[in-house]
């Protein structure tokens, strides 16, 4: 202690103190910012990010800007997170084929590696929802609770049997039949296009796992009542009964009043 107090008048003491102070601030800041951005991605390597940037510049920058800052023809991607990028690219919605009421699902244009690299680049632009944890996608949650959550939060647009439905002015909520669990999870946390966001503060990750379990269960078990006619309710069922049901009744009345040969 005595040695330290003797050296405090040393010409370099001010410099040493400054360096120490700066170091301390840096460490504290990084601790604080990781606490704030617990969601910031760490699973991506620097090479993922740089390859992703090349793909981005070649395929996405026309609309979203060279640094993903957005332009008149495309929104900013800062802070949308890896989950949003993975959802849009792996379902083929991005790159967008044409403008219209909404971007539609089509065969993916990038393979799994390229999709991952793009997600890494978008995640590097700003903290946002990360790729979901594998354990939340296993479909081993509580299907009953998931069904309740689905009917409250999702069924009004996606239909109680997840068959999809119409929205305003040409937009629609797509059918969830055959959509991979990862895409369903990502759609909930990011709220793509006109879908509202269902953040972890609204539906917990376990709740999302339950919803995925419910969707997989109803896909697996099929329709308990026989042919579901697309699960579209009165539209397809009404058409069927008007055409087939009335047709049978008319055939019977013709037969009833016809003479036997």
């Amino acid at each position: 202690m005595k040695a330290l107090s003797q050296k405090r008048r040393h010409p370099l003491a001010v410099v040493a103190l400054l360096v120490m102070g700066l170091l301390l601030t840096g460490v504290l800041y990084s601790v604080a910012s990781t606490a704030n951005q617990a969601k910031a991605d760490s699973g991506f390597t620097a090479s993922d990010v740089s390859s992703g940037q090349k793909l981005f510049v070649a395929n996405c920058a026309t609309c979203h800007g060279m640094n993903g800052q957005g332009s008149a023809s495309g929104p900013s991607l800062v802070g949308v997170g890896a989950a949003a990028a993975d959802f849009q690219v792996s379902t083929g919605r991005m790159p967008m084929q044409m403008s219209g009421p909404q971007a539609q699902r089509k065969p993916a244009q990038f393979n799994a590696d390229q999709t991952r690299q793009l997600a890494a680049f978008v995640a590097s632009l700003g903290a946002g929802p990360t790729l979901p944890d594998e354990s939340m996608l296993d479909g081993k949650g509580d299907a009953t609770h998931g069904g309740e959550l689905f009917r409250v939060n999702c069924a009004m647009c996606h239909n109680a049997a997840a068959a999809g439905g119409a929205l305003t002015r040409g937009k629609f909520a797509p059918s969830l039949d055959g959509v991979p669990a990862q895409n369903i999870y990502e759609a909930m946390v990011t709220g793509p296009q006109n879908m509202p966001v269902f953040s972890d503060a609204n539906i917990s990750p376990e709740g999302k796992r339950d919803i995925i379990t419910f969707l997989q269960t109803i896909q697996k078990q099929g329709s308990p009542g026989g042919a579901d006619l697309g699960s579209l309710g009165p539209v397809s069922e009404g058409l069927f009964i008007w055409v087939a049901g009335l047709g049978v009744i008319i055939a019977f009345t013709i037969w009833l009043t016809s003479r036997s040969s």
Partner: protein
Amino acid sequence: MGNPSDGAPQQGGTVATAGQAGGRFEDPGIPPHRPRLADTDPKAAKRAERQVTALFVISVIGTVVFLISYFAIDLGNDSSIDTIRTQNILLGLSTAFAMLGIGTGIVHWAKALMPDHEVSEARHAVRTEEDRAAAVRIVDDIIEETGIKRRPLIRNTLIGALALAPLPALAVFGDLGPNANDKLRHTMWAPNAQTGKKVRLTRDPDGTPIRASDVTIGSAFHVIPEGLNDLKEGKLNEKAKAVVLLMRLNPEDLNISPGRESWSYNGIVAYSKICTHVGCPVALYEQQTHHLLCPCHQSTFDLTHECQVIFGPASRPLPQLPIEVDSDGYLVATSDFHEPVGPSYWEREYS
């Protein structure tokens, strides 16, 4: 020509020749009888008989299959959806065959084998003055025989009883009025009358309270009032009135009218989910256009303009629930809705 309804064959042109005096046209009569195959060919008759028998046997088989599939398929606790589906299909098909077998069998029997002679019956004269006089006489006789003119006591008590009889209906229907009216005006969102404690907004269906910080921009929360899940009875009725959709927008996207400045919190707004048209739940929220769509009749509400109707048959905006944040950071309703939720009704405009 015999009794026209005895089924005996008749000669064409012998019926209904009355009215020919004018000589306008000749009555063509009924077309000549054409014998069926089964009438002339015993083999065809035998074949038709076998067909009818087969249809009845199909009905018997259908009934037996119904009973077997109803009793033999076990729907115990460990039965799967597949078992239920199999049983459903078997029950439906066997019932259809059991009923259709009998029906088509009887019709085929009647058409192919039973006598099919054409019969026509001359039309009666419609009425005569004697008939009318006779009818009047009958009514007079009845009045005379009841003695209602001679026994005024009976007549007067009957009139009294008839006059009083509708009163119970008035009492019953009267009860439908004012009470229901009040019930539609109040929901669970009103602060506690004694303590003044404001009701927290909680998640549907779990009933967990919502912090303002949980509601990120673009989020949609389906909300029920705190304590709804604790209700022992009437829970569904209360829920049907009190359900709310909670959304957060960019605050500058909201166009707030004077008097409603304190109803939202940092762009968080809460609106009744019950459509003002016929009461369907309006929850199809588009987070980019800020449209709320009702799935039943496509009424569309603009969230940025306090849920004004921009399309469809609804005539009023969705009622807004005034909200604020309590000392613990949770969202609470500052008051009940300022108007009755849901569709119009008779006394809505009068309190």
